[in-house]
């Protein structure tokens, strides 16, 4: 599904990510863990097209993503939930969600059946809206409230729901647990598990390594701009180095 090949990212002369490769297969949850400043967000921003890739390539199925900008990758099915949620706080919940359906319509317009696409767009949006409301009944209750007035957990749900509105091929989340109470983190992560069961592919960036590995299939550990470890979630959870570095347990 998603292949990142030898990607490097640099800000001026400071290199943040060095030659990182990773893959996410269809229907998997893959997590990328690492401490602050390891380069996780830089890598993700480069993959999404927010910052340019210095070298290397990013493929989504057989489409080359590197070199495209963020709005283009979004239209190709790259569902990006940025760090810190980035909701439109002054707009009602429902408008935030409808905005999420923006790329799909753009894709329809490109097709030969563009005019049909124009007519079916509203129906598409409605279907997606209903499925998002099924996932997050809270959002339905609060649909006319301003997004900024929601609680932290609800805002994160809205951010995920908004990304789901364009039926993305892959959902990429940057630290969904940021600033949330532990029980809410659990709730959000369980929800990602449910989404995977429905066939969605997910790339999850997390600092909360244990929580992330518990729901993930595979994981990568990043340190100072490089991938230092990779393996199945079980392997990583059992790995002493990981335990020591990220799980806060003493080596036994």
């Amino acid at each position: 599904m998603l292949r990142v090949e030898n990607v490097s990212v640099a800000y001026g002369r400071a290199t943040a990510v060095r030659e990182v490769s990773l893959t996410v297969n269809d229907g998997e949850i893959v997590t990328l863990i690492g401490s602050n400043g390891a380069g996780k967000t830089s890598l993700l921003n480069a993959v999404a097209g927010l910052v340019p890739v210095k070298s290397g390539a990013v493929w989504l199925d057989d489409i080359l993503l590197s070199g495209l900008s963020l709005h283009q990758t979004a239209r190709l099915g790259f569902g990006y939930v940025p760090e810190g949620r980035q909701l439109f706080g002054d707009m009602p919940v429902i408008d935030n969600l409808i905005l999420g359906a923006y790329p799909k319509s753009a894709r329809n317009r490109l097709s030969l059946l563009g005019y049909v696409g124009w007519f079916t767009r509203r129906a598409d949006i409605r279907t997606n809206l209903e499925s998002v409301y099924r996932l997050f009944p809270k959002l339905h209750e609060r649909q006319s409230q301003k997004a900024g007035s929601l609680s932290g957990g609800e805002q994160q749900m809205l951010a995920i729901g908004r990304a789901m509105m364009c039926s993305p091929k892959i959902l990429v989340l940057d630290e969904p647990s940021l600033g949330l109470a532990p029980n809410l983190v659990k709730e959000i992560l369980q929800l990602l598990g449910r989404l995977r069961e429905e066939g969605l592919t997910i790339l999850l960036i997390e600092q909360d390594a244990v929580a992330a590995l518990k729901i993930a299939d595979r994981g990568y550990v990043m340190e100072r701009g490089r991938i230092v470890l990779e393996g199945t979630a079980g392997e990583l959870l059992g790995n002493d180095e990981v335990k020591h570095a990220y799980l806060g347990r003493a080596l036994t």
Partner: protein
Amino acid sequence: MMNVERLQRFNWRPVAIGFLLVLLLLMPFNWFMGQYTTLLVFIGLHTMVTVGLCLLLGYTGQVSLGQAAFYGLGAYFSAVLSKTYGVNPWLAMIIGAIATGTFAYVIAYPIFRLKGNYLAMATLGLGIIMYVLFRQMAQYTGGPDGMGGIPQLAIGSFVFDTPFKRYYLVWFFCLSILLLSQNIVNSRTGRALRAIHGSEAASASLGINVAQFKMKIFVLAAVYASLAGSLFVHHLSFVNPQPFGFLGSVMIVVMAVVGGLASIWGAIFGAAMVRILSDELLLRFGELDIVIYGLILMLVMIFTPEGLFVRLKSYYRRWQTGRLGEVEL
């Protein structure tokens, strides 16, 4: 099911707009406000420019302190083409709008790499440069003295030769622009614009082409201003650089702020307030008028940052719901 449940109450909107239309229709007659026809024409022209700025500043969140430059470009294109080169005034107007739009498009490339205060400075600079050009390119523009004898607009043998006729022409354009803008704001595009105002990164992550939208709205605002400029010179049959300088741009910003930045119909209110103030009250202040504009801008931003018009509307609404509450009790 998915509709927002609202308090059932009488919808005043069509009534208010109908009232406004009737008022606009009757105002230039002598028994009503005939002596103010010229002022009313100017209010219409400024509304056109202000709406463009509202779309740009209030919805998309991009500052422009140089809207008067586009107003002036439209004016001078129309003036020079129709007087010096004898081009049909309508054609001159269209050429002016296209040329101004193209100019705005080209300028938008470098200018929208800037944000916030820097964007404000750049557009301010653009306005000043254009003003200097209008003054200095005297062989085309007539320089600071301006040029007169600009032909009137006409449809067939019907010439718009009195302020009374031109009033309807200007307000026809003005209302068309207001309606168009209203539709843009309520469409998918409008939602995208508000998203850009909220967060550019988030908008892009949803597939909105942020740079392109900013440019499109900038061009649209420039075209609005250019059309207003063309109508302006054919109204006065005279043009000089004075209205297109820095003060002109500031006036447009004040109009947009007084009317409410994110309010299309507020633009009429803002343009009317500021124009009436400047024509009827500020004359005695002479050069100090810019101080008064600054003061108005500050006061409005401090006390009613959403705009005077929007605030009045919300007071009315509160009063309404208050009354409804009483009835229910």
